[in-house]
């Protein structure tokens, strides 16, 4: 995919001075190694950000904060570099209709794991922003790609609302949205599912089970409603995918005398299926 791809959307312009269009750009840098998580511009009310430059400053800061794995090679052996990219100018519409089969296939082939976009709002009193809120979509590209191939029923889209119940109010969007471990869980799910499709069953199992544990924590934090149900469905999907990875490994001569043989495909992650960690 080259250059911007624009989809006109009637009635989508409720934000500051930006065109009435949802724009998808090719934000994956050519020659970049590893996997990518793409952070798009949110739809923003004037109370959230007074103008586009202010919003972009906040998104750049959010990218820095979310990109905690930047020094991962100095912390522990990793699956490969995961790059966070703030895609300036990219603004998917909230329901993500732009992510059609063709675009998702392109993203999948470019090793994009997650697309993040959403909407933000706030209250302003005395010129000071307070009570920031957001609705953020996480699209797990490999899962959506598999759904498009009719391999799975789950669409790979999770929508989370911030702040969560009980969280202290803040006017700082970076503070509001910085949940690195949530992203770790989604990245591991996306990477694990991609590895499963590509026959790397040990890599798939490890990532899917890591993801199951982390998504269980997200699920436990949510108090109910659609988001909790989506998180539960994603965790269940991830555990089932881990079971498929394990079953496939047991039938694959590369793994038949290895430690994967110790695990049970009916309960591959041992405990995460029940929604809890150890």
């Amino acid at each position: 995919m080259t250059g911007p791809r624009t989809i006109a959307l009637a009635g989508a312009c409720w934000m500051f001075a930006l065109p009435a269009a949802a724009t998808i750009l090719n934000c994956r840098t050519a020659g970049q190694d590893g996997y990518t998580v793409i952070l798009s511009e949110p739809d923003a009310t004037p109370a959230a950000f007074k103008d586009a430059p202010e919003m972009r400053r906040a998104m750049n800061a959010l990218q820095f904060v979310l990109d905690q794995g930047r020094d991962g090679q100095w912390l522990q052996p990793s699956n490969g570099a995961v790059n966070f990219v703030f895609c300036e100018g990219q603004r998917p519409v909230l329901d993500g209709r732009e992510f059609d089969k063709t675009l998702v296939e392109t993203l999948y082939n470019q090793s994009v794991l997650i697309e993040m976009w959403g909407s933000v709002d706030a209250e302003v009193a005395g010129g000071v922003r307070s009570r920031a809120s957001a609705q953020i979509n996480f699209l797990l590209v490999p899962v959506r790609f598999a759904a498009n191939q009719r391999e799975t029923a789950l669409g790979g889209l999770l929508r989370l609302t911030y702040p969560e119940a009980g969280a202290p109010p803040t006017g700082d969007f970076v503070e509001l949205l910085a949940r690195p471990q949530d992203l770790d869980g989604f990245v591991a799910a996306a990477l694990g599912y991609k590895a499963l499709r590509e026959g790397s069953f040990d890599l798939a199992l490890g990532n899917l089970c890591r993801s199951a544990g982390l998504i269980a924590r997200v699920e436990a934090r949510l108090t109910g409603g659609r988001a909790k149900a989506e998180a539960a469905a994603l965790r269940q999907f991830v555990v089932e995918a881990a079971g498929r990875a394990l079953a496939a490994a047991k039938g694959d001569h590369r793994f038949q005398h290895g430690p994967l043989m110790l695990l049970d495909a009916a309960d591959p992650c041992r405990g995460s299926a029940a929604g809890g960690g150890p």
Partner: protein
Amino acid sequence: MPGLGGGGWAVRRSLCAGALSALALATGAAPAHAIGTAPCSDPQVFEGAAVNAVILPYRFEPSPSADFGELKVVGDRITAMVQLEVLFAMLKYGSVGTTRLFNEDPFHPCDPNAVVQRVIERVRPGNGLAVIWGRIYVQGDQVYLQSYVRFARGGAEKEEIAVDLGPEGRGLRLVGRLPAQAVPMAPRTITRRDLDQIQEAFRRSIAVRPSRDEGAAGTPLEIRPRDPFDATIVDVQGDWMKLESGTGPSGWVRARTDSTDWALRRFMPELGYFDAVLGYLRVNARTPLAGVAPGTVSGWITSQFAAYEEAVGGDAAPVAVSLSRALRGFLLWTKPAPSREEAAQLCADSGRLAPHYAEARALAAITGPWLHASRDPADPDTQRRIDDGLLAALAVDPYNATVLDNLERLYTFAQAHPSPRPIHPDLAGRLAVVRAARAAARQ
């Protein structure tokens, strides 16, 4: 506040062209303290110190709102202030050294792997090394920064605990290791105005005085980020230390251990976390503690970790908090009058916070019997609970050496003590798989 060590010892070090050129420790078991700077290409530590802290330069990421020169100044100032704060905090442990590294080429950041590999060989077996580094993103007046902490022990000694179930020698010995020895800390925000104020606070509070009297007129200890920090600690009396500087004032400085007043730590609570890691390394170092009781150091460690958690919350840095719980668990597990139940609870917390780390899950699994009624290794229920936990750990990292090691120990014990309700009907086959996997990993 304990004394920092009496007289009878001295540290001499001269700085030459920004590198540590010499360190002579007086003979005897008394504690030593030293501070220095060195280039990243030739990192140095103090071989005689029980614990070394190395501060790597905070590197900056490109920003549209600040030019290269400004970014470098911010990074250098933070690094220099971190070293001072770390030094004054760690003096209470005794026998410590701190080195600040600087970049000769700002376009090639200091590589923590290379630094640790080079300096760990100079750390005496059993003594500790901790490294802190970070990255910075500047946007207008806002400075976003994230620190990373990593530690190791000289002589390639591992941080581990022996978990014995049943009578020693005839029971089941399992081995617990830490979830990680390198962790990202929660990102923080600070303004450039805050940095100015902190630097001013340092100037006011860290003054070099002619005598050990806070009423005596003092000369501020200047922070010159772009210059090597040129100071030698030649004596310590109580919480006062005597500096000799080649470029600045010489005299006595009060090293406060009541760190709550220190402005930088208010904005960077990870410095308290780093201090606690240094304390953990110190209390277990081969060079014994002098002048301070292990229980006192453990108290400092606990309070510093708790302060960090309170400052950032458990969700912002779950792996760091998982590690801190495990470190506290290790301390309790190994202390003379062990509190195994409390330690096991901390290890369980560690596993819950980092379910994606195999060692964290394994540690929770093997210490789990202290949270249950039975600790009898021959009890099939006990074996099954441990086995479940270890297999959950194996699922997140199928080739993890710690997990495979413990599975081999468990299956070997279970095979030697047959039960009417065996945990697996094909125990011999599973044991063969585990042994083959371990052998393959060693090749």
